[in-house]
Structure formats: C-alpha cells, structure tokens
C-alpha cells in the first residue's frame, strides 16, 4: 500500500518538481522580503533617490528630444545632398518648380512636411501640411531648430541652410511635436498621432518653447530644459515630481507583479503535478472531478493574481467592451471570457473524452445490465441536462451580445476587428464545449436506448426511437419551462441535429481507432458553429431593436434636464481664466481660434451636440466663433436684451419647428476681476439631430451618437393626431397615416412589420406622453427590413472567420507536432479532399481578387467622375454667382457664401486663393486644423504649375481616408486665379454604404461558390478514396487472418478490376497459407519427434543403468541388497517422473486439449493467475488496469495457464523477491497486457531465442513454457513481445483482440 502511494507520487522526484517548486516558493519570499527592505531604504534615502531619478528622467527627455531633432536633420541633409535636387536649383527653368515639388513629395515620409525657401527667404516649394507659421527671421546660415506652439498643434521646425552655386537656400522640416486635441471619436483620436514627441511618454508633460520659458516656481513641478540643434536653450518641459508615496506605490506595484508572476508559474507547476497524479487515479470520474477542481482553481488563481491584465494592461481586459457578473468575475472582460472559455474547453475535453472511451468500450457492457426502469430515468436525466446546457449556452451568447458594446451588427467588416474576433473565438470555444458535452449525453442515451430495444431491430429503428423520445421530452421541457431566449422549434431542430451528429460520431468512432479522429473533430466544430450562428444572428437582430428602443427613450427624454446642466457647465468652462488670458493677450492666432479651442476643451466638445460658440471682446466685437451643425443667431447684436456683465440662460423654441435651443451668455473676467469679454453659446436640443445630424461627425466625440451606429438605415417620422408631420426619409409619402390599430394600443413601444411604397420596414411606434402634447404626438422609427442576402452575408462572414481560426489552430497543432518529433498521419481521403479544395478554392480566390480590384477601380473611376462633375458644377456656380474673373473678386468670397452655394448644389467645397484657403462650406474642419489651410503641394503642382484642368488626390485624416477633386478657377483671360476643392469627406457614409452593399453581394456570391466547391470536392474525394479505403481495410483483415473478403462494388472500371484481382489474390494467399501451414506442421512434428526421442533417451539411460546395477547386485548377492534396491528404485522412479513430465510438457505443447472459446474478461483471468501466487509474501503485485474494454474470445483455462507461466517465470527471475506489475491498456479493438518484473533480466544475446522450443535459461527448464505461451497468444490472433534490461527487469507484452461483438 505504502509502495503504491509512493509510486503515485514518484514523479515528484523529477527535477522540474523537486527543484522548481521549493525554488519558486523561495523566490516569492525573497521578493517580498527584498521589497520590504527596499521600501525602508527608499524612505531613509528619498532625497538622493529622487534627485537621481529626476536627473535620469531629465537626461532621458533631453536625449529623446535630441534624437527627435536628429531624425529630421538626417532627412533634410540627405535631400540637400541629392544630385538631382542641387542640379535643379542650379538651373532654374520653366519646369524647375514642378520638378522641385515632385522631388520634395518623393522624399518626404513619416508625416514630415518640407518647405524650401530661397535666398530672399520666400517659400518656393513645399510638401505636407502647413501647420504653423515659420518666422523667416529664424532662417539663418546655421543649422537651427525651434518648437512652434499653435493653439491646437505644436511643430518641431528644423532649418537646414545650404549653398548651391554660392546661392543661399533653406530647407525647413516640420515634424508634429504634439497635438493638443481633445476630440476622441471613431475617426480622430490622439492615438492616431503616434509619431509625436509626447506619444509614448508614461506621464503627462507640459511645455513652453519661447524666450519667456523659465524654471517653474512650483516645488512640485520638475522643469527640464530643452536644447536646440544650435545649442541654445529653447524651452522647458514641465512634469509633476514624483512623491515618496507614489514612488512607494510604484515599487509595491512592481513587487506585486513579480510575486504574481512567480505564483502563477508555481500554480502552473502544481497543476501539471496534479495532472500527473491524476493519471494514477481510478475510476475516471474521480480523476475528471480532481482535474476539474484543479483547472478551475488555477483559473480563479489567475483572477486573484490579476494575470495577465495586471502585468500588461491590455484593452481586451477592459470592461468597457464586455462585462458579465457570471462566475464571480471569470467573465468580466473579453480577455477573461476568452481565458475562461479555453479553460472550459480543456475541462470538457478532459471529462468527455475518457467517458466517451468508456462508453464505447466497457461502459457499453455495463449499460446493458441496467434495468429498464432505470434506463428510462437515466435517458430522461441526460435529456434534461442537455436542455439545461442549451439554455445556459443561449443565455451566455445573449449576455455576450447585450452585455457588450462590440459592433456585432456592423456590416462593413468582413473579418471582425480584434476585440470582436476574440469574443467570437470565445463563443466558438464555449459552443464546442457544449457540442462535446451534448454528444456525450446523446451517446449515453443512444446506448441506453439500444439496451432497451431488442437487438433484432436495425440501428436506424433505435435512432428513430431515440429521436421520438427526445422530441417528446423537449416538448415536455418547453411546456414546463418556457424560455424567451430559445423557442420550442429551435430546441427540437437542435435535438435533431444532435441525433444526426451523434449517429455519425458513433459510426466514425467505431471505424477509427480513436474517439476523437480528425473527422470527428471537424464534426464537433461544425455542430458547434451550427449551434452558435442562428442564436448569434438572432441576438444581433434583437440588438438592432434594442438600439432603436434606446433611441426612442432619447427622443422622449425631456430636454431641460441634462442639457441645462451642460449649458451651465459649458458657460463655466468657456468663460474660464484660460479664455480671459487669451482675450487679454495680443496673440491674434490664439484669439481667432479661441472659440474652437474652448469648445473642444469644454463639455460641449465632449458632448458633441450641434452648437455655436461666439467669443466677444469687452466692446462686444466678435473675435472668434465656432459652430458645429448650426449657425449662431447672435452675431450682429450680441448684447441685445442682456447685460454684458451678467450670466444669461434661456430656452428658445423656433417657430414652425419642434426644435428647441438653449441660449446662454457668460461674461469673461480676468483673475483680477476685470471684464475682458464674453461668450455666447447656442445649443440645439433637436430630436431629429439624433438621427440625421448636420454636425460634422469628424468633430464629434463618442457620446450618445453611438445611437447613430445602427448600421441599418434608420429614419424618424413625427405624427400629430395620426398624420405625418415631418420625416427624415424621402421614401415615406407625406400623406402617410398611423393605423388606428396602433393608435388604440396602450403599450408604450409597438413594433410593427410594415410595407410602405414597396419597401419593407421594421417600425417602432411610440407616443410622446408629455402632458403638453396630450398624447397627440407619435413618433415612428423605421429600419429597412433585411433581405435573405443580408442574412446569408452575415452567416457566411462568421463561417469564413471560423474557417480561418480553425485553420490557424490546425496549423499551430501541426507545427507543434512536428517540433515534438511526431508524425502526423493524414489519410488518403483527407489528402484528396484537401487537394480538391485547394484546386477549387485557388481559382475562386484569384477570380475574387481580380473582381474586387476591378470593382475598386470602377469605384475609383466613379468617384473621380463624380468629383469631376461636382467640381465643375461648383466652379460654374461660383463664377455665375460672383462673376469671378479677377483675383480681387475671389478674395471677397466668405464662408457664408460657400455654405449657401453648398446647400444649393448639395456639395461641400473649399476655395483656395493662390495657395491659401479663402473660404469653405465646412470651415470648422479648417478651424480645428483637421484640414490644412494651405493647398496640397501635389494639387498646387498639378493644377497651378502643370495647369491640369482636373486633379484628384487621396488624402486622410486620422483613420479616415478620403479623395479630393481639384479644379482651377480661371479668369476670362485664362489665368488661374484660384482652386476649388471638393473632398469626399462629407460623403463617407454613402461611400461606406456602397462598399457594404458591394461586400454583401460579392461576399455572398463567392462564399456560396466556395461552399459549393468544398461540398463537391468532398463528395468527389469520398468517391475516389472509398474503394482505396476498402482495399486498405481488406489488407488489414488479411493480415489478421480474416480471409472472408467481399469487395464487389459492381464497378466496371479499373477500380472494379483491382477489386476482383484483390479478391482472387486473397483466395490464392489463403490456399498458399494452408499449404504452408501443413508443411510447417509436418516439419514441426518431425522436429518434435526428434526432440521427444532425444529427451526420452536421457532418462532411459539412467533407468537402464540402474536396472543393470540392480541385476548385478542380485547376481553378486550383495549384502545390503535392500539398500541398493531402495536406491536404484528411487533413481528409476525419479527418471520415470522425468519422463512423465517430459510427456506432459510435450503433450501441452503439441497437442493441447480441445479449446472451448468463451467471452472472458482479461482482468479476471489475470487476477486469478496472480492469486495463485498470493503465498509468495515477498513478492509485491501492482495492478494498473487502465483498459476500458477487456472482454476477449478465448479458452479461459489456456489463457490462465499462459499468464501463470509468465508470472511464475517472473517470480523465478526475481529469486522470489521484488515487484511484479500487471498493466493493461486498451484501444478500440485491442487490449494490451504487460507483465513487468524487477528481476535479473535477460541478456540481449539470448533474448531473441526466448520463445524457441527447447530453449531455456534455467538449469532444469525444458524450454517449452514460453513457447506454449507464444503458441496460445498466436492462436488467439494476438502478439507477444518481450523486452528486458539486465539488472533492471523484464516486461512481457501481449496484445489480444477484443471481442467487439460482445458489445
């Protein structure tokens, strides 16, 4: 017993456990202790530590700044040395400027803008954005650098002077230094500007780059001087000094992280140790429970240690994407849910696979012995568990959709973004776990049903019986426990699917040697995907409804709650001291942009409502204004009806519109209380702006505008007393009425499927129950109904994603296998199938690629044509409107004029006078510096220098790519006086929609083609490979001595001929084998006769001699004749015994009694054989019976004798002292019995002869024992092998055929 336990834990002697576990414990203690000591050290030496820390920080920042400057200098100096560049500067001709523009465009990269100044300090060429103004006074003959701070952006400006033919030139590089950009939306965020100096710093930094910059007086602020390329101090960076407490926190956090990682490794080792230990535990169910506890303990340990999120902060572990309270925190983020899903999958595999093996082996026999009444109860229990699991699964998918902010319903992606991809993988893992568990339950149910139904019925009858039983139970379950998440029909469909899948799984497991073969795994994945997708699609569809319902609550929300708070807060923030400082300064650029910068930093910028901000000076003159989505009403008489020194707040309703406006004013005072100006704010509280927003989305923060992201076209209609009053849709007729049926309903939200003008909608009707409206106002939000194509698209893109995931996992698995030196056996059918798939997929993919390219080109052409038309219309409208033919007239055009024309021609545009922006219909984009005031260098070169009539260029803002069309404005004399640009920036929604529609169509068509190719490929592969598989199986049968082979498939092709030939060959082989066996038998008998004769001779000689001796003694009348007689008779009797023994052994070897074959349990026989040696107290027997199935067809006595023989040999080899291990394992149709001793072993020289008759290593052995054993095993169709290491021991391994019929 003690030996048995110690052998179970013997693996702990391995180095990884013996050394690492105590080592890791020691590491934890050391880290903890060292951390404690270090913290005390910090407290005692804080002043020197902080000094060193700050010095290090300052050095780091200065070196970073230096290398930031050097990067630009290297590029600039390389350009100035370019032969092509200098030669152009030497010979100034008509194409000089064009060439320089082109060259600069080619050389610039990484967001670097270039400007070339001549000796007179005039800019002659440029590329990239304008950014901030460079003071030409800074252009000197020495290399120099400065940082220019604008209100929104700051630039590092590097000036490289150079000479060409004694002429001075200056090449100026502008590199973005920092973006003071508060807008954070799906287009623009500070993350977009990753190539700035401040990006990547782990702390906030402020800076002043001017001669006024000096060391901060604040003790809490660390000032770091910054040095230019010329060696001058050009400014300071300011950052918060680290306090002792925060330093302590940082140190503590690092200690905690180190301890967490060490503990994590320790727990992992313990988990491995548990796995090793569990391998020695029986029965399997106890092992499964033990491993389950271990796995989930490890999962919760990770949660407690906050790994991996605590070590490296990942967005995947952010609750803002997904969080659910399920499982006490194991699903509190996408990352957590993914980890938990993987743990679940591993856990289910550990439980399900051994149980399936058991069910397909030994368990089947045991299930047959279950009483009928209990069988029905167990099946009902299995089904109940099955339905519960389904319910849990549906609830989990529902939570993953509704407890998340992921864009499941975004049709624009074909492959999902990272966060959604991880979530989808998690769902697949859970779904595979469910499928595996359900298959186990179904398999168990089927075997129970089989035991109930008489064996004479065909298996199809059993399956049908089971299906009927399950459907009945499903109906019963649904009737008692109705679930809104899964319908009765859906459950029944899933049950039917499971029955089919289980049938296939059962068949394949029987055919294959493993429970989870390649095709079984594919089957499980397919079942999982089929389970998941309809539920997911249904939930996503419900999500659209949920969004629309949210929109309805937003529309009904009274305007005067949050917006009044916003207004109050906005006025506080807009009229703060920062505004006062700017207003009292002389910085005209900062004052002009003040309205925008204040708006962007205020709650208005964060909220993103349509609003207008106007800044006044103390005299009531407008100094700055910024509007988004609306025009301010108070531009002419700002202080009309209000006192400039008092705050003012009002709500104004526009006549003829349901829209309301919050109006507010606040005076701006300096820190000394001096009145310096005022700020006027107008805020739209319109309902329709929630759906159709005039405001530029680029300038909006994430906010309620998430409601815009329906991805399905949504329109809003307002009804008064059932009649349509207003609508955002062009397709709803003005005379549309709400049906009386809806008007009479009491429900607050009414969903209706309706068709208006041949268009189908899913419409939500809801009533405005505001007391003032007396319930006469109704709203309707309509979503266009999705057609079949959309559903196909939605399903197929998930399928595509899952195919990619499975392929990646498969490839990884393949690589790991190869690296571990294992071979992966892929059968002919799979290879053929893969070959078919590749051959079919490649042309489809190539075609898809070319088609897509063609579609993109066509799209680009369409965009280009569209822009060409639009620019032409705008240019002619502008010229007609203003009679522009001389530059002076162009310079008079204002933003308001552009807005008016834009509304008329339905196109937003910009006008450039020379190379600078003159006016725009969307000036806020320029005010916010999202677009450059300077004409693009390429446009300048092409339109103005090369005089192209139309030029198109690809540009981008943040992550938003767009196209701009340029067209010159010509004077009557043909001179170019300006340029009109029309960007597609404001039509991005339409373009996205167009792309999505194209994706839906193309993707659907190609995915269908791919599925067809895969399907047809699979069928062909099966057709071709099935005769070869049959032939392979037949060959295996022949090898096992089964000659009864029938391959007649009725085919008349080469395969048919091969089958006929194979069968004939099998018959010939059988005949040959019979002949051979006969000859062998004869030879064996001859050999045997010789052996018998030889063996008999040996005892006969002493008998003869003894009798002669006796006769002589008698004749000689020997005195002690009695004694002689006694001695001689003893010898004779002894020799006669030897003869008897020889006869007996030969009899066993040669004859063997007639066999009585019965089903017998190998474990039982092995046990009986072992029990015979129980009196050998110095021999320890270890039993390791791992075989799931152990019933074979054999002669019980004969097998027992064989085992006794081997065990006896083992005991003799150990000199009756040591350990004998009896070990069994099983595969699908084979049981392996291994008997291992710890004896002296057999030398390799004689090992190969051990089964030969008449060969023995023992002095008194006949050498027949192991020969008889071998014959017994051979006759049973099995094999016997022996392995031995001298001094260590010997293992005899027997492989016997299991009796599958017995199941």
């Amino acid at each position, binding site marked *: 017993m003690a030996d048995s336990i110690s052998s179970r834990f013997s693996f702990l002697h391995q180095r990884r456990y013996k050394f690492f576990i105590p080592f890791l414990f020691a590491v934890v203690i050391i880290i903890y202790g060292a951390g404690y000591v270090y913290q005390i050290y910090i407290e005692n030496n804080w002043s020197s530590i902080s000094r060193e820390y700050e010095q290090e920080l300052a050095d780091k920042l200065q070196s970073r700044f230096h290398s930031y400057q050097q990067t630009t200098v290297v590029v600039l100096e390389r350009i100035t040395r370019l032969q092509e560049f200098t030669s152009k500067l030497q010979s100034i001709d008509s194409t000089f400027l064009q060439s320089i523009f082109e060259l600069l465009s080619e050389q610039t990269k990484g967001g670097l803008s270039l400007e070339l100044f001549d000796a007179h300090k005039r800019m002659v060429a440029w590329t990239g954005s304008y950014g901030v103004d460079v003071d030409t006074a800074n252009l000197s003959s020495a290399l120099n650098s400065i940082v220019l701070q604008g209100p929104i952006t700051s630039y590092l400006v590097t000036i490289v002077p150079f000479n060409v033919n004694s002429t001075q030139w200056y090449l100026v590089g502008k590199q973005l230094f920092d973006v003071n950009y508060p807008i954070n939306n799906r287009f623009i965020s500070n993350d977009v500007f990753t190539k700035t100096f401040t990006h990547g710093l782990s702390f906030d930094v402020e800076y002043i780059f001017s001669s006024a910059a000096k060391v901060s007086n604040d003790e809490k602020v660390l000032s770091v001087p910054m040095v230019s390329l010329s060696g001058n101090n050009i400014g300071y960076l300011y950052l*918060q000094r*680290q*306090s002792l407490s*925060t330093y302590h926190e940082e140190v503590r956090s690092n200690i905690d992280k180190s301890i967490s990682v060490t503990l994590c490794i320790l727990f992992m080792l313990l988990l491995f140790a548990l796995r090793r230990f569990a391998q020695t535990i029986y029965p399997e169910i106890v092992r499964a429970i033990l491993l389950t506890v271990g796995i989930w303990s490890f999962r919760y340990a990770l949660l407690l240690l906050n790994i991996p999120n605590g070590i490296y902060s990942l967005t995947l572990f*952010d*609750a*803002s994407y*997904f*969080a*659910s*309270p399920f499982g006490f925190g194991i699903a*509190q*983020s996408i990352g957590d849910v993914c980890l938990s899903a993987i743990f679940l999958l591993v856990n289910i595999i550990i439980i399900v696979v051994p149980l399936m093996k058991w069910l397909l082996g030994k368990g089947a026999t045991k299930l047959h012995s279950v009483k009928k009444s209990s069988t029905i109860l167990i099946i009902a229990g299995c089904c109940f568990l099955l339905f519960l699991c389904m319910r849990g699964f549906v609830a989990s998918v529902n*939570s993953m959709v*509704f*407890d*998340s*902010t992921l864009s499941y319903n975004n049709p624009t992606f074909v492959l999902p973004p990272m966060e959604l991809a991880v979530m989808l993988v998690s769902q697949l893992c859970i779904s595979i776990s469910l499928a595996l568990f359900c298959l186990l339950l179904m398999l168990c149910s089927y075997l129970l049903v089989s035991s109930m139904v008489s064996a004479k019925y065909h298996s199809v009858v059993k399956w049908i019986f089971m299906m009927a039983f399950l459907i009945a139970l499903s109906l019963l379950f649904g009737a008692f426990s109705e679930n809104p998440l899964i319908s009765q029909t859906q459950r029944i469909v899933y049950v039917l699917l499971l029955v089919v899948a289980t049938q296939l799984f059962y068949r394949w497991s029987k055919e294959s040697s493993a429970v989870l073969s390649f095709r079984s795994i594919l089957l499980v994945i397919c079942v999982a995907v089929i389970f998941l997708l309809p539920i997911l699609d249904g939930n996503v569809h419900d999500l659209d409804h*949920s969004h629309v319902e*949210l929109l309805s*609550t937003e529309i009904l*929300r*009274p305007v005067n*709650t*949050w917006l009044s*708070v916003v207004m109050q*807060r906005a006025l506080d923030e807009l009229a703060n001291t920062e505004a006062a400082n700017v207003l009292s300064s002389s910085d005209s650029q900062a004052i002009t942009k003040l309205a925008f910068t204040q708006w962007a930093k205020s*709650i208005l910028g*964060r909220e993103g409502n349509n609003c207008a901000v106007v800044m006044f000076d103390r005299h009531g003159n407008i100094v700055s204004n910024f509007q988004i989505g609306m025009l301010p009403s108070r531009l002419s008489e700002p202080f009309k009806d209000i006192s400039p020194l008092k705050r003012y707040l009002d709500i104004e309703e526009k006549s003829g519109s349901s829209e309301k406006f919050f109006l507010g004013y606040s005076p701006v005072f300096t820190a000394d209380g001096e009145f310096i100006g005022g700020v006027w704010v107008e805020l739209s509280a319109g309902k329709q702006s929630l759906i159709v927003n005039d405001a530029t989305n680029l300038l909006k*923060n*994430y*906010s*309620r505008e*998430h*409601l815009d992201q329906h991805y399905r076209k949504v329109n809003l209609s307002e009804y008064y007393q059932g009649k349509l009053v207003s609508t955002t849709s062009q397709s709803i007729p003005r005379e549309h009425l709400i049906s009386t049926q809806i008007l009479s309903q009491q429900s607050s939200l009414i969903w209706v499927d309706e068709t208006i003008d041949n268009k189908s909608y899913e419409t939500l009707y809801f009533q405005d129950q505001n007391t003032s409206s007396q319930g006469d106002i109704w709203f309707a939000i309509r979503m266009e109904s999705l057609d079949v194509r959309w559903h196909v698209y939605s399903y197929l893109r998930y399928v595509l994603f899952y195919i990619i995931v499975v392929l990646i996992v498969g490839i990884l698995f393949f690589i790991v296998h190869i690296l571990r030196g294992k071979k992966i056996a892929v059968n002919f059918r799979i290879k053929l199938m893969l070959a078919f798939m590749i051959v079919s997929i490649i042309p489809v993919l190539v075609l898809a690629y070319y088609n897509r390219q063609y579609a993109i080109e066509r799209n680009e052409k369409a965009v280009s044509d569209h822009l060409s038309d639009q620019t032409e219309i705008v240019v002619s409208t502008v010229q007609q409107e203003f009679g522009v033919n001389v530059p002076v007239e162009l310079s008079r055009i204002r933003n308001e004029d552009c807005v008016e024309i834009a509304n008329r021609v339905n196109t937003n545009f910009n006008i450039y006078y020379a190379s600078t922006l003159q006016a725009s219909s969307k000036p806020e984009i320029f005010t916010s510096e999202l677009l450059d005031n300077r004409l693009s260098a390429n446009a300048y070169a092409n339109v103005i220098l090369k005089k192209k009539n139309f030029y198109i260029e690809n540009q981008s803002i943040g992550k938003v790519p767009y196209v701009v069309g340029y067209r010159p404005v010509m004077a009557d004399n043909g001179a170019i006086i300006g340029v009109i640009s029309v960007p597609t920036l404001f039509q991005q929604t339409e373009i996205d929609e167009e792309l999505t529609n194209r994706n839906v169509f193309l993707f659907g068509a190609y995915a269908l083609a791919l599925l067809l190719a895969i399907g047809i490929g699979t069928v062909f592969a099966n057709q071709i490979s099935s005769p070869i598989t049959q032939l392979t199986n037949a060959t295996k049968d022949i090898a096992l001595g089964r000659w009864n082979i029938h391959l007649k498939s009725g085919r008349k092709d080469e395969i048919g001929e091969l089958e006929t030939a194979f069968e004939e060959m099998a018959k010939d082989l059988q005949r040959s084998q019979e002949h051979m066996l006969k000859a062998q038998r004869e030879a064996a008998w001859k050999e045997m006769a010789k052996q018998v004769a030889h063996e008999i001779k040996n005892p006969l000689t002493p008998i003869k001699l003894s009798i002669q001796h006796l006769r002589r003694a008698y004749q000689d009348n020997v005195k002690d004749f009695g004694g002689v007689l006694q001695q001689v008779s003893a010898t004779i009797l002894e020799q006669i015994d030897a003869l008897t023994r020889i006869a007996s052994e030969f009899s066993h070897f040669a004859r063997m009694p007639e066999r009585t074959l019965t089903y017998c349990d190998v474990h039982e026989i092995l046990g009986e054989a072992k029990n015979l040696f129980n009196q050998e107290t110095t021999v320890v027997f270890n039993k390791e019976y791992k075989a799931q199935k152990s019933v074979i067809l054999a002669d019980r006595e004969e097998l027992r004798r064989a085992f006794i023989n081997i065990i006896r040999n083992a005991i003799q080899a150990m000199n009756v002292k040591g350990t004998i291990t009896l070990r069994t394992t099983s595969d699908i149709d084979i049981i392996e019995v291994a008997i291992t001793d710890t004896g002296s072993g057999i030398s390799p020289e004689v090992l190969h002869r051990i089964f030969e008759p008449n060969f023995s290593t023992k002095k008194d052995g006949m050498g027949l024992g192991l020969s008889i054993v071998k014959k017994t095993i051979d006759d049973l169709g099995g094999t016997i092998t022996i392995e031995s290491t001298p001094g260590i021991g010997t293992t005899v391994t027997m492989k016997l055929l299991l009796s599958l019929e017995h199941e």
Partner: protein
Amino acid sequence: MRILLIIIICLVSFVGTTTAEGTNAEGVLSISLDSLSEQNKSPEVVALTDVFKEIERGVVTQDAKLISKHFGKQVFLRLKKKEDTYFSANQAQYVLQNYFNTHRIISFKLSSMNEELPSPYATGGGTMQIKNSRVLFQVYVALTKMNNRWVISEFNVY
C-alpha cells in the same frame, strides 16, 4: 472579576460604537441630504431620495454595487475622459468599479436634487485622486421609472 469583565465589555462596545459611527458613510450622507429629508415629501419623493442617498453612499464608499443595483436595463454611463455610451446594467457595474479602482474618491456630496417628474435628477460634486494629483469632479444622475421602480437611466461624471 465578573464586574471587571462587564466593564471591559461595556468599554469595548462603546469604543466599537463610536468608531463605527465615525466611519459610517451614512453619517456623511445625513449631512448632505439633510435638507432634502426635512421637507414635507410625498412617498414618491421619499423613494427618490432614498435612491439618491444610496447612490451618494456608493460614490463615497466607491462601491459600484450600491449604485448598480439601481441601474435600469440599459444605462448611459459617462465617466470623465473614459467610457461614454449606453451599457447594460451588468456591464455598467464593472465599468464603474474599474473606474473607482483607478480614481480614488476623497469626498463627494449630492448637492441638488430635481424631483420634477417624470425625469428626476440630482447633481453633486467632490474631489478624487488620480495617481499623484487631486481633481474636482461633478456627477449628474438621472432616474426614470421602470416597472414601478426608480432606476438610473444616466450616470455622468464630468
């Protein structure tokens, strides 16, 4: 001996009670919403006040569960420079808890309550610590009635 034991128990109880009173967040609340509870109020408004009191306690003690139990099915959550959208009640609880984990509340008080039906709301302010610095913050909480229960429809930290 027995008397001595009784004295010790009494002393311990007294110290325990005073300590508990000293740290009880309810104590802070009773000051901040005192003025509200003193007025003559309908049961509806009393229910509202109770909800606001619990929200205040949730913010003061940084216990997202106290607040999240009043969340509606979906809640609009806006956390200063952080999340800014509609969340399910389940998700919002974790988002709020994560926010509290990185933003330590030093003080907070709901200063005004608007009981106007059907959209009552309250606003308040306080101080929080983020890393090395202390910042002021404002809170706006709007309630709505759902299934005869006042639930949070919007929670803004701005």
